[in-house]
Every structure is written in C-alpha cells, then in structure tokens.
C-alpha cells in the first residue's frame, strides 16, 4: 500500500517544500511576538502547503454516496460528520477557524468517487476528507489521496489488509470485530460448530477466512459449512435447508445490502427461531440502520459483534444520541458506522491542534497516539498503523430494533490489519 509510484514524486517535492516551510515557521516563531495561546495563529504558520485555510475558516470535504444504491448506508455517515463539524464550530472551531465543508456525491459509482476525490484535493484544496463507505470506493480513491497527499477519514468496519499513510481508519478492521465475538460465543454459549455464510465479495470472504482460522486453529472447534451468495441475492431457502441439516450451533452470517432483508425474513419463515438457545445467529454486518429495513421482529434474538451500539450506556453516548436526534429527527437510528464517521472530524481536530498546523504531513505525524475520551463508544486511540484501538461489544437484537449490549471486552482491542496466522 505504501508503494505508489505515481504518488512518490510529488510527495517528495512536497516534503522539500514543507521543510522550507517549517524552517520559515521556526524563524517567524523566533522573531515575531508569540500570539496568545490557542488564539488563531496566523494562516501563514498553520498552512504552508496552500490548503483552503483562511484567517477564520478551514474547508474540508465530505465524500459519500447520496444517490444510488449505497445512499441507503452512507446517509447516516454524512449526518454524523455534519453533526460533528457543527459541534466543533460551536466550540470555536479548529485553531480558531470555523470548519466549512464541501459535499460531493460519489453516486455509488467507484470511478465517480475517484473523480470527486481529485476535485476536492486539487481544485478545492480541502484540509481533510471525511468519506467513502464500501471498500471498493476506498480502493478507488486511495491512489488519488496518495498522489495528491490528502487525508481521508474512513468510517466503515472493513476487511483489513490495508494501511495507507493517507487514510485514518475510524472503523474496526476485521480481526478486532471478529475474534472477540467468536471467543464470547464459544465460552459463554458453549458453541462448538459454526456455519459461515456471506455475500460474495472481498469483505465477507476475508472476514470468514479470519473467522475460520480462529475457530479451527485457535479455538479448536469445527466449521461445518461455508457459503457465499451473489450480492443482491434474494432467495435463501436452499441454504437455509442446508443449515437445518447440518444443525450448527452458530450461524455466522455476513450478508449485506438488500440480501440481508431477504435472508432474515426467510430464516424466520423457515422456522429457525433465533430467540431459542440454539442455533445462535451471529453477524458482523447488521447495524441498527439495517434492522430498520429488516424489521426488528424478524431478527430478534440474533447477536452482532461491533464496537458501538446505540444503546451503549455512558454519558458521551447519551449526549451524542440526543444531539443526533435533535439535528436529524427523533426517528433516527445510529449504527456502528455512523458513530465511527462521527469520530472522524474530532480525531482530525485533535491531530491538527496537536500538530499546530493544518499541513497534511504534520497532521499525519501527530495522529498516532491521539486519544478521544469524548467518543460515544467510550475511549479510542489512534494506533501507529492508522487504525483505532477500541473495545468490541456483543449486542443482542431486540424486537424494537435496538441491541442490548451483553458483553464488552475488558481491554481495548489492538488493530491488526495484517494479522499473522490468519491469512
């Protein structure tokens, strides 16, 4: 990931410019009388690379799909990012500058994402971009961010196997999400056999690969079936029959999108009662957002492993939930990714303030070690590998569409995007 031939040349030039810039900064610091602490420092000091920063504003980009098939998932992220930006502005902004945003529509189309990313970085010179949702859209914009040296805050839980200097991953990577849940279901529920199921693309396949390794090698338990269906598949009767015959203790389902609704409705109609002891349905792909489409009564009793549930009981989260509802409406639900998207602007603000500069390279350097004690999920910290240390929770789906948190790891899970022994 780090090697990108196209990106290398401009960046090293940039670095040279930056060195001159920082020399100038040191000089000006020495000569000019220091302005009052935390009051807005002059633009020439905090922006040496020509970003869209003025004396009282800084411009960032929001890049999600608001039209097309992915709009269904990405809407929540856009809302959370706007909420965070508004709250930061109410607190006085970043380095004394109000955040303004330019929103672009990726239109659920990966080349469009790349094009819009280039527009945000080259034409608008935004200081940071909060955006993308699917791995495909992230992969599409990655070369753009590396070439033009931008900073992307990416909110979705994803398959790992990536670590870019130009991306901060605010969602969990696969091992963080999967391992704790499997340990829990093995220890607490005494599960011994697993049936792995997923939509047919990179995230479910990589995740199930990790799950299988963990189940077989680390836990010494048994996988009795593994199966993938095309994205958008709507008929799950055959696989449900297979599951019934194999009688697994755990149905481990990573079905996404419209297929999700079909899968859970048909599972229930086929007489698999998730509120019973066995089989346990465990998923890493259904947040409160998806439950709205599935219907709480159709998924009641399933378990999900994620880092955030709307029902988390702590002060940060209560404030976040009520602020979110105040801004976007009482009937809103907040899922894991929405919360992760909310972290983006806050993490960026903290990094900018630590660096004392909007310059991308300085923000990158300042990022590892940044901690956020005000996160709705509790406490997070940025790892050297640009992912977040975070706790993993197990939620139990209730009929009203919310999860009840039944388990939480005691320690923060270390992000490990290239897990050894799992590939």
């Amino acid at each position, binding site marked *: 990931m780090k090697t990108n031939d196209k990106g290398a040349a401009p960046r090293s030039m940039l670095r040279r410019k930056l060195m001159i810039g920082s020399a100038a900064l040191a000089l000006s610091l020495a000569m000019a009388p220091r302005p009052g602490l935390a009051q807005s420092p002059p633009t020439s000091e905090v922006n040496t690379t020509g970003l869209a920063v003025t004396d009282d504003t800084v411009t960032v980009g929001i890049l999600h799909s608001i039209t097309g098939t992915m709009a269904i998932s990405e809407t929540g992220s856009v809302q959370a990012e706007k909420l965070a930006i508004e709250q930061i502005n109410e607190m006085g902004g970043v380095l004394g500058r109000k955040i303004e945003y330019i929103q672009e529509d990726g239109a659920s189309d990966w080349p469009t994402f790349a094009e819009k990313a280039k527009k945000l970085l080259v034409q608008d010179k935004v200081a940071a971009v909060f955006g993308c949702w699917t791995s495909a859209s992230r992969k599409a914009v990655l070369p753009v961010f590396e070439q033009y040296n931008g900073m992307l805050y990416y909110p979705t839980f994803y398959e790992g196997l990536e670590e870019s200097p130009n991306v901060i991953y605010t969602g969990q990577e696969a091992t963080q999400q999967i391992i704790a849940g499997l340990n829990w279901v093995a220890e607490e529920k005494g599960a011994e056999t697993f049936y792995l199921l997923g939509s047919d693309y990179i995230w479910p396949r990589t995740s199930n690969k990790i799950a299988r390794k963990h189940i077989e090698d680390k836990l010494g338990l048994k996988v009795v079936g593994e199966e993938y269906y095309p994205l958008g598949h709507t008929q799950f009767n055959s696989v449900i029959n297979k599951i019934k015959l194999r009688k697994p203790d755990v149905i481990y389902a990573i079905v996404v999108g419209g297929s999700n609704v*079909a899968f859970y409705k048909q599972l229930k109609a086929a007489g698999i009662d998730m509120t019973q002891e066995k089989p346990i349905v465990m998923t890493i792909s259904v947040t409160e957002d998806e439950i709205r489409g599935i219907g709480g009564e159709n998924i009641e009793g399933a378990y999900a492993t994620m880092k955030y549930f709307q029902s988390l009981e702590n002060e940060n989260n209560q404030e976040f939930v009520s602020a979110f509802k105040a801004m976007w409406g009482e009937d809103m639900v907040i899922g894991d990714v929405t919360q992760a998207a909310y972290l983006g602007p806050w993490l960026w603000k903290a990094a900018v303030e630590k660096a004392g500069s909007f310059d991308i390279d300085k923000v990158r350097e300042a990022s590892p070690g940044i901690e956020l004690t005000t996160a709705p999920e509790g406490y997070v910290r940025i790892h050297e590998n640009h992912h977040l240390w975070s706790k993993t929770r197990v939620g139990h789906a209730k009929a009203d569409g919310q999860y009840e948190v039944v388990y939480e790891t005691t320690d923060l899970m270390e992000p490990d995007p290239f897990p050894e022994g799992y590939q």
Partner: protein
Amino acid sequence: MFADYTWSELGSIFAMQGFAGLVLFSVFVLMALGLAIIFGQMGVINMAHGEFMILGAYVTYMCSNFFQSAAPALMPISFFVAMVLAFFASGALGMLVEMGLIRFLYKRPLDTLLATWGLSLILQQTYRTIFGAREVGVTLPDWMMGSLPLTDLVEIPINGLIVMAITLSITVAVAIVMFRSRFGAQVRAVVQNRQMAGAVGIDTEKVDRFTFGLGCGIAGVAGSAFTMIGSTGPSSGQLYIVDTFLVVVFGGATSLIGTVASAFTISQAQSTMEFFLSGSMAKVLTLLTVVGILMLRPQGLFVLKVRR
C-alpha cells in the same frame, strides 16, 4: 455426497428442496408475468419493471402503516387490501407512462430500452426523495410470518405458501383475461396484425395503453407480495430485473406459457444446484445452461407463430 445422512434425512432434503424450488418458481412467474405481457405483446423492453414492482411494495408499506395506526383490528387483511391498491397504483402509473413516453417509441423498439432505463433512474430517485434512501421495514400481519412444522426437519414457510397462492391466482386471472375476454381477443388481434385490427374497428392505441397498464399492475402486485420475502428500498427493484429478463427471454418473448415453463426450468435447476454447490457457483451454472440453450434455440423455448 449423501453418505452423512440417514434415509429419513434424505427424504426431508428432497421434500424441503422440492418446496423451495416451487416457491422460487412462483416468485419467478410472478416477477416475469408483467414483463412478459409488455415485452411479448407490445415489443417494449421495459427496464423500469423493477421500479413498478417497488411502487407496489411502497404502497404495501404505506397501507400497513395506515392500518396499524388507524385500524389495528383489520391488520390481518391489510395485506390483501394493499395488494389491490398496488395493482391500481402501478397500473395507473404504467398507463401514464405509456401516454407520456412509450407511445412515441413504438416504431423504435430499441429506444424504449434506453427511455425506460432512464425512467427507472427517475423513479428510483423519486422514491429516495419521498421515502428516504434507507430501506423501509414493512410490518406484515402476524399470521403471515412463521412456518407450519410437518416433521422435525420439514417445515413449510407460510409466506412461501402465500406467494404460491398469489402466483396461481394471478396466472389464472391473466390466462382468463388474455384468452377468454373481449379485451384479450383485442390484444391478441393487435399483436398479430396491428393494421388489420385497426381496420376492423379496434382502438389499437387504447389496447396498447391498457396492456401496458395491465403489465405494470401485475408488477405492482408482485412487488407487494415480495415484501414478505425481500427488501423494500429505492433500488430494490434492481435485484429482480436480471432474473426477470432471463425468465422472459428464455421462455420465448411472445409466449406466456413459455414464461411459465422457463420459470419452472430455471427455478428447479437453480434450487437443486444451490443445494449441492455454493450459491455463486449455482448461479454461474444456471446462467451457463441458459446461454447454452439460447444458442441452440435463440427464439426461446416457446414461439408464437405470427405472420409478419
């Protein structure tokens, strides 16, 4: 392959898979019927078919919300009220579309493909604006969810039975309309020889309009029925469109019996293969089979003899 199972389990496998295949067959027929009428009788390639289905699904959604808040006692029958409303809503929209768009394109059948594709995008974005980008959850009457346990292993999903019943009634109704009613005779006359039909006093434009409306209305009913088994969102219609065209083209575009036969072949092939292979491989093999047969019989399984 069967060594792990006992005889009674094997019996259950075949019973359950047979039923799953029949449900899939019903679903395919229901999806394809409306398209087959429009494509087969009028030669219009309706890419917005999925969106007409989703209109039916949204009507069902609004209807079930209405019954829940206004008349909870009537909830058990809300679904059937919704289905009738869905037929008229999609049918009415279909007739409007025919008047405003399709009738200018009868001479250019390939252009209908582009025009209706554009229409599908417009409809999707309209749904997104009205109902929001997220999928909506349709609350169904309690008695429609769940299953009838026959033995330990064999359980019959109730919604599967309902889909089968709906498909059967719609198919019979369409057969009666097309082959026993005056309207059906007019439709067939127009298909066989438009000018001659016009010459004997059939208002061909009106027949076109009602045929298109009928096809769209049936799509609406299908969409309404699919709230039981699938998702309801602005772009959910896209999930069905490929399978729908597959069934219609494979069956021979002009023959309704062909549509039924092709739905049966494809559904049985798919559900059998899904059991022995993984889902994605089953789909690949199904598509390969269809491609293979279409290479031998490009006109599809059944062909209506029409004098051109």
